[in-house]
């Protein structure tokens, strides 16, 4: 177990190194010039060159990357070009909001997805199953900004049940979390349905029924833990998809998280912030997958981490 954890952590560090290099390279070859953004349109060529020199952007790409990496391993993510603050403090201020939104999103997608999947599997081939599967198909296909705007219009503008935007109370969380979770819930309900149908065919389900257990107990205690196993690995991967989702959802709902921060930084070519948000997201994805893998043996005793 200790050996496994050690190897996984080394692996994770290598993945993050790779991500940092590729992102840095992409930003370097980007035609947009961050110095022009900082200096403004009216700046003289001399001013532009001064700023470039000052930020070290006149150096070769590998030298710049080396400097960034040296800072990163010491916990220094650099300073924002435009906001003149430490990137780490900018991210730290906004990360809790994004984590809350993600947690809400995961809760929504699991709650809706797993319930739909289980019910559909039980009523397999009947109208209820077909109805749920059509619904999930719509959920998978609908773009998040459309879902967000629809929910906003219906529940905030027309019905006034929830606030239109902002951050602070549980009511503020509901619509953004729902928007974030709906697409995933479609995937999960389809996966859960097929996983559940597969498990219900297994010999041990017949054994459980032959013991005289109630239908409810057979489903919840014998089928569910087995059916949910493939889903857990999915949740780890999902965090990556969510990172893309929160950029959209945070913009639609004015949610003050790192998605918004990233969105603004991309528009202004604020490279340290883009790098910082990318690294934090990548770390979250790597961590999410690691946690998913560490949790699995607790549900499936056949799996041993080595």
């Amino acid at each position, binding site marked *: 177990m*200790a*050996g*496994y954890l*050690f*190897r996984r952590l080394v692996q994770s560090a290598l993945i993050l190194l790779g991500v940092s290099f590729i992102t840095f390279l992409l930003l370097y070859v980007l035609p947009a010039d961050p110095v022009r953004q900082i200096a403004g349109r009216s700046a003289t060529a001399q001013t532009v060159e001064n700023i470039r020199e000052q930020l070290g952007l006149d150096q070769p790409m590998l030298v710049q990357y080396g400097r960034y990496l040296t800072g990163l391993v010491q916990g220094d993510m650099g300073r924002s070009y435009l906001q003149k603050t430490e990137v780490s403090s900018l991210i730290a201020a906004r990360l809790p909001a994004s984590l809350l939104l993600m947690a809400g999103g995961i809760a929504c997608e699991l709650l809706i997805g797993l319930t739909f999947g289980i019910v559909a599997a039980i009523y397999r081939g009947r109208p209820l199953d077909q109805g749920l599967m059509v619904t999930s198909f719509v959920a998978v296909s609908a773009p998040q900004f459309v879902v967000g705007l629809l929910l906003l219009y219906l529940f905030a503008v027309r019905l006034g049940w929830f606030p239109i935007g902002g951050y602070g109370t549980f009511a503020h969380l509901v619509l953004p979390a729902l928007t974030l979770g709906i697409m995933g819930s479609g995937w999960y309900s389809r996966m859960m349905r097929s996983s559940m149908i597969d498990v219900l065919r*297994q*010999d*041990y389900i*017949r*054994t*459980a*029924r*032959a*013991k*005289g*257990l*109630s*239908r409810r*107990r057979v489903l919840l*205690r*014998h089928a569910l*833990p*087995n059916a949910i196993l493939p889903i857990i690995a999915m949740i780890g991967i999902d965090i990556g998809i969510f990172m893309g989702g929160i950029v959209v959802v945070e913009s639609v709902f004015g949610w003050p998280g790192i998605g918004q921060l990233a969105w603004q930084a991309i528009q202004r070519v604020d490279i340290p912030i883009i790098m910082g948000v990318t690294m934090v997201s990548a770390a979250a994805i790597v961590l999410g997958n690691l946690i998913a893998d560490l949790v699995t043996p607790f*549900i*499936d*005793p*056949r799996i041993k981490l*080595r």
Partner: protein
Amino acid sequence: MIVGAKPIAAPLSGAATPLLCVRDLTVSVRDRGTVRPLVSDLSFDLHAGETLAIAGESGSGKSITSLALMGLLPNNVAVTSGHADLEGIDLPALPEAQMRPLRGAKVAMIFQEPMTSLNPVHTIGAQLSEAILAHETISRRDARAKAIEALARVRIPEPERRLKQYPHELSGGMRQRVMIAMALAMRPALLIADEPTTALDVTVQREVLDLLRDLQQETGTAIILITHDMGVVAECADRVVVMKSGRMVESGKVLDVFARPAKSYTRDLLAAVPRLGAGAKRGAPQPPAAQVPVARLVNAKVHFDLGANFLGRPTHRVHAVEGVSFDIRPGEIFGLVGESGCGKSTIAKALAGLVRHDGHIEVSGQQLSSLTAQGRKQICRDIQMVFQDPMAALDPRMTVGEAVAEPLLIHGVGTAAERHARAAELFDRVGLTPHQMSRYPHEFSGGQRQRICVARALALKPKLIICDESVSALDVSVQARVLALLEELREEMGVSYLFISHDMAVVENIVDRLAVMYLGQIVEMGTRDQVFGDPRHPYTQRLLDAVPIPDPARKGRPHIRPAGAQPSPIRPLGDPPAQLALRDIGAGHLVAALS
């Protein structure tokens, strides 16, 4: 119930009302609006403490009958007429709410596949206590105590420790014992055992059958034993119902049915059962010595590394094959027998070049490990395989004609027309007709599919065909015909076989020479007459002794009980097992020295 009177229980209890009374039971499947019967007009009685075998080949409706009694039929299958009264209660007519409390309490069931019949994510203890708590309102502690008692009753060593274990930590035989413990925990009046030993090794089958018999004497439970194995019927049952295609062919006391089968189907079925000792009637084959062997293994080894330490290096090693040497001569059928995990299939894979090996393996005089990719492809033409499950071995999206012609295509033999003609010829040879070539595997029966696999193996005119449990999944009557086909092909084409099987009776009927394997090593080797006529190694003796004999008159013979736990071929790295030395006790009969 008078325990001592068990073998002749029927007449003694004949006056009493039967425990289970099945009359004109018809079970039908609804399929796209049509209703088709799977079981028709089945009637039988079962008395307390009695064992009734329902015997038949696949598709005879025996498993459906048991599921109907349990109320566990699939959604589109239902009892359409007749009744099955257990102590006066018509089971199929009960609504689910009233049937559920009876399941596990009055009627219990054990299934064929112990490997998959227990839930992998719950402990043995949880699954056992649950079976008890479903029917009794007692505390968890009491349920636990009862669970331990139930495990002890099926003679599982250290029952308390087992409670905390998960199914994957137990062997197949142990799992089947757990299933039996679970089924008998509530002391049901009726136990339905659906092929309870079919998936087990023969020595384990022996233990489980003995256990069932002992438990029946203790508890007086009536047993319905569903099986395809007439040996098991003869050894375990008092009465038998023979079924075919959903109908009862014949029923009666086991002694009578075996001695004087009334119906021709029963006679054919009994005649097709491979029997130990039957092979001796055949003339002893003369092995053509002094020729280049088709295949030769000298000190062959196959190892798999397992586990990982802190740096990801393996810590254990599976000694799947450990220093095995034998020759297969041209035109010879060489048998390899042993129980699961003994390494017999791994030898087949090593011969076919599918796993890496150490030591020396030679095919047609060429050493496998020295071959280039081109040479290896050439050697593939000489060795072909026929596997256990023909459905899994045929691509469902390829017509069977394409499947048979494919080896020719891979090796670039002939034109398309020539390949087609060769495939047609092969179809003809294995007893199918060429016009069936455009059909797909699912349109054939199991026996026909295995014939197709044999035809495919023959396509390249190989020198050696490896049959890895090739007839094990087939019904006995089909099995007999496929075996006859293999023999004919040997006569006709001079092809050799490596015949791998766990079924001693089948092996005795077909092989010329054989090797008995145990934990990756050969413990005994010789001609069929040497090994079967004069088994010397204790393991060989135990294997032969465990085979159920389809003769009820020989019921109740004493058996050699195995001693201690099974040793494992998995050992720590750097600790190889001791190499067994084989000693020639005369005329090439090799026996491993006892350690």
